[in-house]
Each structure stands twice: as C-alpha cells, then as structure tokens.
C-alpha cells in the first residue's frame, strides 16, 4: 500500500474514532459510523475532441446513534470537528424523538468480523495512475473505432473514460473498525446509427478494478457501433406468447429483481411475493445462484458487510429451491433469524439488505445453442422502464431485441413490451447459457424463458 493510502486510512480511522467517542460523550448508548472518500476522474470526447473533463475529490460521513432502542441517522460532507460534534448532538437529540424499537441495535459482538488482517480481495490497482494524456488517447481511440466502423454511424454521444478510487471505512462502539479500498476503470461509448428515416443508438462498455484488464478501446468502439447498426429499421413483433432469450446484460436485471424479493426487509414488511416460500421451488430446477463475497477482484467483494458483520459464501438458490432470505441484523431479529451478513450501508440511511458478488451457475449451451433451443422467439438486448413490482410479482417492461426464427437471428424489433409475473418467469426458465458476463457484481449468462407475453402490433 502506498504512503498516501496509509495516511488516508489513518485519517479516516481518526475521524471515525472521533465521532464514535463524541456520540458516547453526548449521550448515545451505541453508535456506528461510515466514512467514504472518493477520487474520481472522467474524460469524455466527442467528434475527436475533448468534450468534458471532471475531477473530483469527495468525502462524506454517515453516523447512526442509538439511545437505548431508539435511533437516528445523520450525514455530512463537512468534516470540521466542531461541525461533526454539532451533528452528533443533533443525532442524539433526534434519537430521543423516535420510538423505541426492540429489534433496533448494533450487531451482536459475536457476529462482527474482528479477525485481522482482513483478506486481500484484489480490489485496488496499486500501479501508477494512467496519465491525462493516456486517458485522452484511450477515449479518442475508442470513439474513433466506433465512428469509423461503418458509414451509417452518423455520430456518437461520445466516449468516456472514468476512474475512481474509493475508500470505505466503518467503525462502531462495540470494537469494530475496518475498511476497504477499491479502484474502478471504465470505458464506454455510445454510437448513433442512421439510415434513411431510421436512427438508433446503442452502446458498449467495459469496467475492471485493474486498469490493465480493461478491454481494448478499439474492441469497445467496434462493438458499440456493431450493436447500433444492427438495430436500424426495426419492426414491431405481433402480440402473443413467445419464448424470450435475455442476453447476459439483461438477464442480470432479472436476478436483481429476485434478490430484492428475498430481502429480509421485504419479508418483515410482508412486501414480497416470495413470503413463506423458503425451502420450496421458486425457480426452474436449472437455476442455481451463489453469493461469494470473497471473489478476487469482484465488483461486490467485501471482507465484512455494511454493519461490520462476518460474511460467507453461500448458495441462495439450489436447483430452483430457495434456501432462505437475506438478512441484516435488524430484519434477522424482526423475523427470528440470524444475520446472513447481507447488510449494505449508505451514508444517509440505516443499513438495508443487499448482496456482494452473485454468481449464476452457467449451463453448457453457448449463445448459438440457446438460440437453437429457443427456435422461434425474441432475443432481448435492452429493457427499459420500471414496471416491476416485487410485492405483487407483476413484471412488464419495454424491450428492444431481435426476431429469432428457427434459431437464426432475423431483423431487429422495437416498441414492444414483455410481461408476466416474476414467479412464472423464474419457473419458466428453460435454458441457462455458458456465456457469463463479468462486468458487474451479478455474474450471469444468457437466460431463456418461455411463457411470457409479448405486446406489440
């Protein structure tokens, strides 16, 4: 670790210790706090020239205080010690105004991850930062590859190279103090294809914790334009039931809906269609989902959760059977479970439930084999809108994609919806691909579903 990093971490620990001891001094019975600093640098180019460069160093402190069973949460970007003391005082006052809740409180000390050193999960790139010139060249060559791909690429919305270095540290009054540092490098471009009356946009990207692992700018630019061009002159599909193949980028969103439906917070609120379904088949037998917080270089990797609780690798869904819900300390106590180390914490709110890395066990079919298995149907490459309700399980979203006949991709399709229920969608999965996408904390292949309703002409 660099000297700069060591100093930064020491500064953060100092600040955390300060607010925790102030909390105690000012009347809190318990407290926890999170401190996040972020160094962001983005450069975007358009039409071969710099369009925008953004440099920011930002930081924030979030504090939760308890007075017995009552709590309050405060946050600030002002790190002046007097201001922090004032804010803690306000938090303690506010905690006196909320109702006692017997389930509220810090985790049991036995659940805290107190083992040190924390494992190195390969989340931070320690090599020298790319120079400003190199960043510019990367963005320019990405856009150039996009623009020169085909004469129908009319313009681009620009290419952007971004990097961030984020330090998250947290501590509580029961002896937990720990942190993670992670880097992220991302390159993206949006291509605009135009021919006659038809204008379509698509994009491509890559992101990695280590700069050297990033896909080449040329590959990203080319893929973006390839995707945009094949969308030109879309038709609308007929209304009716159809098999749908979700590409990995979109299958990921389905897994996301499922994960929010098995949150302990949704469970105690009776706000999930999966309530009472633990131990039963809630998805097709070919679907298995595992959470792995320790995946080296994973976007969701973390050695402890948002409350400082120990984390473990676990199978969430085994051959379609739901093994259980995901809990933080609060939702576990509310429902008579133990925390599963799934707390996530943001600056301005108390913990909620979320996941680290999620792996969908891949099948043996590549994309071509899945298309062949589908026969006739629609390959979906983009979903838009918010028509997903995990309380009722209703699912209805706008989509873009491709008409597939006899396993062959025909023309592009647009202005249609796909709808069903999350229950029928997950039980209706008939194929899981081998084409894992690793660009997110949810690592997922293509997923083939039958029984969904397509609404078009």
């Amino acid at each position, binding site marked *: 670790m660099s000297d700069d990093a060591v100093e930064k971490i020491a500064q953060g620990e100092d600040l955390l210790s300060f607010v925790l001891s102030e909390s105690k001094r000012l009347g809190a019975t318990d407290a926890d706090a999170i401190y996040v600093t972020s160094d962001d640098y983005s450069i975007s180019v358009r039409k071969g020239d*710099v369009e925008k460069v953004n440099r920011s160093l930002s930081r924030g402190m979030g504090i939760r205080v308890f007075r017995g069973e009552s709590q*309050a949460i405060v946050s600030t970007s002002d790190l002046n010690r007097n201001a922090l003391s004032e804010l803690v005082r306000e938090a303690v006052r506010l905690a006196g105004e909320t109702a006692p*809740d017997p389930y509220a409180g810090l985790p049991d000390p036995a659940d805290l991850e107190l083992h040190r050193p924390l494992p190195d999960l390969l989340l931070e790139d320690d090599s020298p930062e790319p120079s400003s010139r190199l960043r510019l060249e990367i963005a320019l060559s990405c856009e150039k590859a996009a623009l020169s791909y085909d004469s129908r690429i009319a313009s681009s919305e620009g290419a952007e190279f971004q990097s961030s270095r984020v330090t998250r540290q947290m501590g509580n009054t029961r002896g937990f103090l720990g942190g993670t540092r992670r880097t992220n490098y991302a390159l993206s471009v949006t291509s605009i294809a135009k021919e006659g009356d038809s*204008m379509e*946009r698509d994009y491509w990207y890559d992101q990695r914790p280590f700069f050297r692992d990033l896909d080449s700018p040329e590959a990203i630019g080319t893929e973006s334009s390839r995707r945009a061009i094949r969308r030109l002159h879309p038709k609308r599909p007929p209304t009716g039931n159809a098999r749908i193949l979700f590409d990995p980028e979109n299958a990921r969103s389905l897994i996301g809906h499922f994960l929010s439906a098995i949150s302990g917070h949704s469970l105690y609120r009776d706000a999930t269609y999966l309530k009472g379904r633990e131990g039963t088949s809630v998805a097709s037998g070919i679907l298995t989902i595992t959470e792995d917080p320790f995946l080296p270089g994973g976007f969701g990797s973390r050695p402890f959760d948002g409350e400082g609780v120990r984390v473990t690798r676990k199978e969430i869904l085994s051959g379609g059977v739901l093994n259980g819900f995901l809990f933080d300390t609060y939702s576990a106590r509310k429902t008579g479970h133990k925390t599963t180390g799934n707390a996530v914490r943001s600056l*301005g709110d108390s913990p909620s439930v979320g996941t680290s890395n999620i792996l969908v066990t891949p099948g043996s079919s590549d994309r071509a084999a899945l298309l062949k298995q589908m026969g006739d149907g629609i390959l979906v490459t983009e979903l838009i809108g918010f028509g997903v309700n995990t309380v009722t399980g209703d699912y*209805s979203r706008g989509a873009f994609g491709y008409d597939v006949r006899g396993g062959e991709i025909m023309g592009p399709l*647009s202005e249609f919806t796909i709808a069903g229920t999350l229950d029928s969608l997950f039980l209706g999965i008939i194929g899981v691909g081998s084409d894992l996408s690793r660009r997110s904390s949810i690592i997922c292949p293509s997923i083939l579903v039958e029984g969904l309703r397509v609404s078009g002409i």
Partner: protein
Amino acid sequence: MSISEGSTRESQETGRDLAGFFEHRFGATPEVLESVMNLASGSHVDFADLYFEHTVSETMSLEEGIVKKAGSHVSQGAGARIISGEKTGFALTEEIDPKMLRLTMATAREIALHGGDSPARTQVGKMAHSHSLYPVTEEGLVLATDVRRELLSEADRAARAYDHRVKQVMVSLATEVKTVLTVREDGQLSTDLRPLYRFNITVIAQNGTNRQTGSYGFGGRVPFSSIPDIERIRSGAREAARQAVVNLDARDCPSGTMAVVLGPGWPGILLHEAVGHGLEGDFNRKGTSAFSGRIGEKVASSLCTVIDDGTIPGRRGSLNVDDEGTPTSRTVLIEKGILRGYLQDRHNAHLMGMKVTGNGRRESYAHAPMPRMTNTSMLGGDSDPKEILESLDRGIYAVNFGGGQVDITSGKFVFSTSEAYYVEKGRILYPVRGATLIGSGPEVLTKVSMVGSDMALDSGVGTCGKDGQSVPVGVGLPTIMVEELTVGGTA
C-alpha cells in the same frame, strides 16, 4: 439554517444576505470571489461559473405504526466550471476556503484551456434578476420534530382506518433547504434559497395471499409551516389506501395496441418521456434526438400545446433562477401541434444560436449543469372529461403511474401504470394489474384525439434522472384520449 433569528425577509430581497451567508460561512468575500473568477476569465472562455451550495435535509419515517427513523443531513461544496467552445472543465471541492476555491477553479481552467490564455480581471457584484416563487421567512423553515412525528402518525391512522385489508403503512416526510450562490464569468451573482418538502404514504393491502400496493405523495417549494394540513394528510393517506384496495380486485391487463385514456395530473409523465427529454438542447445540438432539426414541423395533433414552465409559484419543479443564474421562464415546446422550441442552458443555447430558457440545472455542486425540464404540462382543451371516457370503445383508462423512461434517439418511451381500468363501450369494467405502456415520442401526440378541460398539475412528487443526476420536476395533463398506444399486459 444559520440566517439570523427573527428575520422575516423574503428570499428575493435577501439575495445579498444569502451571498453574505456564504461569505460568513466559507470566507467567500467579494475579494475572494473576484480572485477565483479572475482564474475563470480570458479570451478563450465562453462561459464559467462557481457554484456554492449548502443543503440541510431532514427526514423522518414511520412503519408498523411507529416512527423508527429520523435523520439530518448536511451537504455542502463548491463546483467550478469553465467552458471553451465545446470543451468543459469541471472540478469540485468540499473544503470551502479561499485557497481550495482558487485551486478548484485553476483545475477547471487547466482542463478547459490546457494552460493557454491569460487570466483577466473580473468585477463581481451585479445581482441577477430573479423570481420570488417561494418566499419564506425563517420561521417558515422550521417544523418541529414532534409536529413531524404527529403528522406521520396521523397519516398512518387514516390509512389503516380506510379498510381492514390495509396491512402495512409506510409514511415519510423529507424537508430540504438548499442555499445556492452562483458567480458567472461576467461577474453576475445570483442567489436562491430553495425550500422543498415531500410527504409520502405507501400502503400494502392484503387479502389472503393477494398483496397489492398503493402510494400517494405530495410536496412542493412552500414554507414548511404549511405542511401541517391535517385534512390534506388524511386524504393523501386514504388515497394511497384506496389504490391498494382497488388493486386487490385487479385482473390481468390486456395486451396489444389499443386506445388509452389518461387521467389528469401525474399521467403527464407521458409528456416528460415522450417529448420533454427529446426537446432538451444538448441532444438536439448533437443531433441525437428523434426531434432534432424538426422545429416548425407538426409533431402532435392540433389539440396539443405543451409547455415547460419553471415559474409556477410553489411547485416542485419551479426555480427562481436556474443553476447557472438565469431566471426560469415559460417555454412553449409544442403549439397546437407544431414543434416550437427546445429547453436550453447557456452552453447549448450559445452553440445553437438560440435563446437561453432558464433550464440549466444540476443535482448538486458535484455535478455540471445541463438542460433539464422544470414543470412540463399540456394546456387544457374543450372536451368534457366524462365524454372522453364514454367515447372509449375498448381500451385502458389509466389514472396513476409509477416511473417512465425514454430512448431519446429512437424516440421509444415507456411508462408503467399503478392504477388502471379496462373499459368497454365507455364503461369501466374492472381494475387491471400494473402494465407498462410503450409508444414512440414523435408519434404518440399525433394520436391525441380529445383533450379535456380538466388540466391538473401533479401533486409534487416527480424526480427526473438524466446522466446520473436527479432533479425535482413537475408534470401536468388534462384527461386525454390517445387513439393508439401499446399496452404491456399479460392477457
């Protein structure tokens, strides 16, 4: 807020006092501002600004009948921006002192000008013209914690009393006071004190294993002393409960392309997605919008006149000045079906040779401004809303929605119903389960065949996301008949 006690001045008159707020708090004296803005000057600089923000928000939430959480959040910082031609340099600092301010502007300068050009002198001090759409006194910004608590409990009681099938009630109240100061390259100063509140009720009703949700919210830029309106809170809670209970009887929504009648108010989200985003200046300058180059063309039926108006007093989407120091305005986007204008910030208006419209908005000091909507609505027409519904032969009558989204390049947009009914021969037959409606922005308004006389703005709940930035907005719509829209049901 640290404005001196006992003050009862209106925000417009306190422009210089608000500048004094930043001077007192961060040492941003006129001399310091000039020394920073000198770094933002030069013959290659087209635009530059230094934006100070101090925001205090207070939140409280109730569930299971008790107030479980209360919070207070402070966000402060300064963003520096220099624009030269099509290039923008942006930097921010959360440590606000004269040295960091100069360093931040110097960073923006280095980015935009690559060390070229030489700084000149800037005279800071001219105050921008500004509206007074949400005058507040200092007392008006205070709402005691116990009053907040009581309002949440009142909503909880009203929602539970509505129907025995109401099982969960979640209520939240958030207030925010944002104080901003913008200094431009020409030395113009503008300040604004922006109150904003939002009250929200979400209800889950249950009948056996059938669970349904309903939600209702309201808010705006008004003194917080006006929030304790018990009748409004009770009726809002009953409205959320009513939606959840109605949905217990919902049947599968039909699918396919059919006629849709949209109710007044929040269904105006249609305009926001179908035309609003596509008319923002940045997309049109770059030629990436489905509406690019189409000013003067017919893009809607002649019954449709669509405006964006940032000057409506007290509304969630309203601003006295935008985040670049331009007073907001009322912009006609579509007049009797003809496309008339775009929404502009300074940069895009300049590059397109059009006039600024006061739509340069930013989420916070950590983000650069871009053209954004304020309150977007359609003017009322001549039709009786009842007759519009009665003339629906077979289709959907949609009165409440969740969110929406648009692909501005292809113009395809979606919005998702949260309360809608299946209608045959003008008669409402039954409620339908949530469905996404999809259409094409440049076409959908050409299919509007009736416009009601009941234009209403939404109750003050909209938040618009673009390029990772969220800003509060409003929408409005009279009852309208859309002859063809694709309904994403399951039946």
